[in-house]
């Protein structure tokens, strides 16, 4: 039997059947693989948080290696002792605070009546408590985000940055060691005790980053807008945690 494939009705029916078949195949596949994908995303977050705390698998001086996926869950659970969700003055412990969607909270917070939920992770490093704060902002092309580990005085102990699509070789360098390592030891407060953040500065004239209290690190050449994005997300997101850290004193 020959089908007249040129008929309009045939074309329409073919298109409908095709969409239905393809749609169900893909929906089924996505559903089936969802647990695995979710687990991978969870491990990645744990790896990133641990990395900001200085717990990694780095060997060489330019490596950015995470704790391997099969071990990360255990290391995370033993290192991060407490997880909090801060809502205004209310602080609740929540062992799944790290799964809170920061992007969603950011969007919800546009409503002035909404009290934004802020996740915070507490761990111990060298006997001292260390806190990890997630941050999120905009780079040149797409989202950038990261985790900042600070001590009780809000002195940076380590950072991890990542990006969705910054320019390779320029903006994407924010996730390289030479940039991230510069933040270690930087102060978030200025000398008069006000919150200042850390500026990714051009012409900082401090290439070895010896001045830890100048609230600035060296920018990456050719990545001005991405660098400004990093500055902005540090200033904006870390400021929200300042009231909580005041209560720790």
């Amino acid at each position, binding site marked *: 039997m020959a089908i007249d494939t*040129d008929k309009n009705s045939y074309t329409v029916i073919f298109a409908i059947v095709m969409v239905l078949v393809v749609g169900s195949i893909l929906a089924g596949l996505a559903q089936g693989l969802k647990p695995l994908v979710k687990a991978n995303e969870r*491990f990645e977050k744990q790896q990133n948080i641990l990395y900001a705390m200085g717990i990694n698998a780095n060997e060489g001086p330019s490596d950015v290696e995470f704790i391997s996926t099969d071990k990360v869950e255990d290391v995370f659970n033993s290192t991060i002792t407490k997880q909090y969700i801060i809502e205004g003055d209310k602080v609740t412990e929540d062992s799944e605070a790290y799964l809170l969607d920061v992007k969603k909270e950011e969007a919800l917070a546009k409503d002035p009546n909404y009290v934004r939920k802020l996740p915070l992770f507490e761990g111990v490093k060298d006997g001292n408590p260390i806190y990890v704060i997630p941050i999120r902002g905009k780079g040149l092309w797409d989202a950038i985000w990261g985790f900042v580990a600070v001590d009780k005085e809000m002195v940076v102990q380590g950072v991890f940055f990542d990006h969705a*699509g910054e320019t390779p070789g320029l903006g994407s360098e924010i996730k390289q060691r030479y940039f991230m390592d510069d933040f270690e030891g930087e102060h978030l407060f200025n000398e008069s005790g006000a919150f200042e953040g850390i500026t990714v500065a051009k012409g900082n004239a401090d290439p070895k980053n010896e001045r830890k209290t100048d609230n600035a690190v060296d920018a990456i050449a050719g990545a001005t807008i991405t660098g400004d994005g990093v500055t902005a997300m540090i200033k904006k997101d870390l400021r929200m945690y300042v009231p909580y850290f005041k209560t720790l004193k």
Partner: protein
Amino acid sequence: MRLLSKKDSKLIMDPLADNNPITIQVLGICSALAITAQLKPSIVMAVSVIFVMGAGNVVISLMRNIIPSKIRIIVQLVVVATLVIIVDQVLKAYAYSLSKELSVFIGLIITNCIIMGRFEAFALANGPWRSFLDGIGNALGYGVILIIVGFFRELLGSGTLFGFKVLGDSVEKTGLYAIGYENNGFMVLPPMALIVVGIIIWVQRSRNKELIED
């Protein structure tokens, strides 16, 4: 009995050399530049394209008599897109860090002109078995170039292969670096892939003069 008839094996062998999609037909250059800075993503990309092209050619070939010619290109796009999403999802589930590294380029397989080209030029007019061979052949031809380019770019640009420091440590100055060798940072950047592809084309055409156009 031979595994493949002479005509069939030509379908596989031709795109590997004398009718290579990248070096002769100059298709699929975009992805060849983008993901070949290291060997591992090159190989993953090659394998993904082999899967998409082999399966896609068979699907299109099986449907060739029922596809309405008016929406033929759309149907081809849907088939590629479906297969690419399958690859993307599977990578996300089983090779997460790799899928992050390849990020948008897996999605960009859809726009790889080699695939649409073979659907249109071959699968729509030939049976499933021959279409399968044609798809595999062309994808292999694409993959071979990708791997060659990835090999040289990672070796000369970063001094590593699959991340292993085969030339010694560039920071601690061991191995080749001890005698003053330096990595060529240019090789990591996409434009150098064009130069490498250019050199491959040069070598290929000087070995087989018939490929030179007047």
